[in-house]
């Protein structure tokens, strides 16, 4: 009888604790490291959340031409300097200019290109 009660208490404890364990918000940050580290820079961390507060999806994904698949756009610093991709805004006019290397190249070395979470989320299930 005592063991049964203990098991029940464990289950109850799990019910109380589990929601806290999976409560982290997902940011959908994009790691861009197709070329960065090969060229001696840290990977780029693109915060989706920061940008969508300011712009609708289609501004970047239609007007500027960012693909909806990480690593598929072929972004280079050359193109950014010429006003393409990030450089369409990060030109010192709409947003701070691309001279602030650290602001974007702020990732931990070794990260692979991809969306954090992707369409497969952190929980509660696999998807």
């Amino acid at each position, binding site marked *: 009888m005592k063991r049964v*009660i203990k098991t*029940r*208490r464990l289950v*109850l404890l799990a*019910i*109380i604790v*589990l*929601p*806290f364990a999976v*409560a*982290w*918000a*997902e*940011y*959908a*940050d994009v*790691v861009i490291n197709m070329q960065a580290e090969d060229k001696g820079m*840290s990977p780029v*961390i693109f*915060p*989706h*959340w*920061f940008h*969508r*507060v*300011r*712009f*609708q*999806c*289609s*501004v970047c*994904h*239609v*007007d*500027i031409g960012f693909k*909806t698949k990480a690593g598929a756009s072929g972004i280079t610093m050359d193109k950014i300097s010429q006003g393409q991709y990030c450089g*369409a*805004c990060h030109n010192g006019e*709409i947003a701070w200019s691309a001279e*602030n290397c*650290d*602001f974007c*190249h*702020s*990732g*931990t*070395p070794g*990260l692979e290109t991809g*969306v*954090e*979470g*992707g*369409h*497969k*989320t952190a*929980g*509660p*299930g696999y*998807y």
Partner: protein
Amino acid sequence: MTRYSTLKLLLLLATATAIPATLARDWKALEEDDLHDRSNPAVGILQEPEEALSVLAPDSAGNKVNWVEAIRQGQIKPRASLYGDNPVRQHDTDVVMKNTLDLPFVLFPHKAHNEWMSCEMCHETLFRSVRDGNAISMERILEGEFCGVCHGAVSFPLTECNRCHSVLRDAVPASISGAVVPKE
């Protein structure tokens, strides 16, 4: 107090705690997110997610922000173009998708999507604007096609079944299938 009522009390407490806990929103700081390099000088200058997101309409899953509500409540006004001078064409119809085995039908609201993006975001690349013209399946969505391009990490996750499968099967006339339903 008997043992039974103690358990009952515990269960009540657990339920009462678990529900708000699911709605609780915890924001990882940049230096704890396993992505940013703590030694990078930008960490400490870049905005923290909690500062921007904790004040927006709450959601129980994914980003923990209800982005559609955030716009509707006027908390944010994301620009429709780089220089803010090119408003997006608005389209307010619902599409009911009936090929859902025995699950509730899917209702796709154009409006909620259109408030966030222009038509070209989906048409004619991800979705053809033809009635019953898209071979959408959950399998392909879970593999990141169709709705799964955004719904996951960026828009509310695919574990939120009922938010799309929201129409009871006997609530829609048989004549409506894959149909564009105009709003009154």
